[in-house]
């Protein structure tokens, strides 16, 4: 019974990590940018919920979706578009700059202390399923993630833009020769990453009941690790990596000796390092990892 309980914990945490990793992986696949400012998209979603606390639920959700998406498009336009021909290292440093800039703007405006938000507190209740006590939040998280992933798969398989994004992820230069509009595809990828980030923020805020200017930082690190495990450049790999990291984290939490549990994350990252010795390219490394013009 306890195993089943842990499994549901693991899958729901893995689902959140997978959503965050998808946001990172999607941008990397079209642009070779590891966007560490993705964490700030999550954080800004959280602060939108905080600012609008007390408004109707739908207003809070739509506003957070909008804020994260607009911020994602804005950072692409201001910080990354002009650097598109720069090396991945330059892009990476630029994303750190964007990340710190946004963190410190929020720090100036709201202060450094975590602030409480009542967002979907009813999801904190647990329901009884054949003797299992399962928090509603976990079930909702798993369901929302599955729906989103199905939607993303359908988008990539069936839509014109989805096909062009996959083509761009394979080989950006060649995609442009096949009529793919670079700006449009990249902006689309950022918009999707913004939506994914705000949904991760819903989970974090509902789970912890609070927001802080650093709330995106650890999530983006986990997301980065997940997408590396899955294979940078592979969108399916990012999702797979997220689930794996979630499952490993929850397993360690459950089965490590009690004294060591506070150091769970150290073990997670240790395993990550060992994993890289085994599969430095990740599980589903993308074939076409050529550089673009």
């Amino acid at each position, binding site marked *: 019974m306890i195993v089943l309980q842990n499994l549901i914990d693991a899958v729901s945490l893995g689902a959140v990590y997978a959503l965050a990793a998808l946001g990172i992986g999607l941008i990397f696949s079209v642009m070779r940018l590891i966007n560490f400012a993705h964490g700030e998209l999550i954080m800004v979603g959280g602060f939108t919920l905080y600012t609008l606390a007390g408004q109707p639920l739908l207003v809070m959700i739509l506003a957070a979706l909008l804020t994260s998406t607009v911020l994602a498009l804005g950072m692409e336009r201001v910080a990354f578009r002009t650097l598109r021909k720069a090396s991945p290292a330059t892009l990476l440093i630029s994303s750190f700059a964007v990340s710190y800039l946004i963190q410190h703007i929020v720090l100036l405006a709201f202060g450094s202390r975590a602030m409480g938000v009542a967002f979907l507190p009813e999801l904190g209740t647990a329901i009884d399923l054949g003797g299992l006590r399962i928090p509603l939040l976990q079930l909702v998280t798993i369901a929302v993630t599955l729906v989103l992933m199905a939607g993303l798969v359908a988008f990539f398989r069936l839509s014109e833009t989805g096909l*062009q994004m996959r083509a761009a992820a394979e080989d950006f230069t*060649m995609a442009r020769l*096949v009529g793919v509009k670079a700006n449009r595809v990249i902006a689309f990828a950022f918009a999707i990453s913004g939506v994914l980030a705000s949904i991760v923020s819903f989970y974090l805020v509902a789970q912890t009941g609070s927001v802080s200017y650093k709330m995106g930082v650890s999530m983006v690190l986990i997301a980065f690790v997940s997408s590396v495990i899955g294979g940078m450049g592979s969108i399916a790999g990012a999702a797979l990596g997220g689930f794996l990291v979630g499952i490993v984290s929850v397993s360690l939490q459950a089965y490590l000796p009690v004294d060591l549990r506070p150091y769970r994350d150290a073990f997670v990252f240790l395993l990550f390092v060992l994993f890289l010795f085994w599969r430095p390219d990740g599980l589903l490394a993308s074939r076409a990892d050529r550089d673009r013009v």
Partner: protein
Amino acid sequence: MMIQPDSGGADASAASLEVDGVVVDFQGLRAIEDVSLTLRPGEILGLIGPNGAGKTTLINVLTGFQAVTQGSVRLGGVDIAGWKPHERSRRGLVRTFQSVLPFAGLTALENVEAGGVAIGLVRGEARAEAVRILSEMGLAHAANRKAGTLPFGEERRVGIARAIAMRPRFLLMDEPAAGLNDAECRDLQTIVRGICVSLSCGVLFIEHRMSMVFELCHRIQVLQLGRTLALGPTDAIRADPKVRKAYLGEDEVSPC
């Protein structure tokens, strides 16, 4: 995302691809020095020259990846110097990438669909068109396999099928035969002739295998050190002593 297909009319009358007096400088180095080129619909123009002659730079000029320092590039009489790569390809100026590679992780069908989507078809139309083109090229069996898992020759043909799906008016083929065996070379020649006739498309054919260039091309332009060394019908170029000396070497041309 729908794009109106180009209606013939005005630009069908003067429908050539013309490069006029183009100069390209790379940070003080002159890569192309006053080259002019005309590609007419329905003709195959061979572009040859030793490495560093400026062939790839010229293709990059045509596709919009390289800005010109001087001179103009016109498509059907319209100056396209300021057009982005995707705008050029949507208006029928299509390049098969060096060695005509398809997207390895997409299926053969999806690759060809991407060509149709590029000219503004919706997915259903693009798919129907892709199915038709693949079966015409004898690739129906490969439609749902990832392009990267196909045998080399078939992978190339998927790349060409993708170019055909873009309904090119002018097709720029950059070393399409690199790495192909003799039988695949012959298949490629048949396909290129077919494209040229059925789409009345002008083909700019860059290739190192001289036997193939001589068999396939109507006219040949020879570049050397960023200038046009010679231009004329294939037989004349083949016999031109200047060309033989500068590029082919005095020896007999090696077979394909």
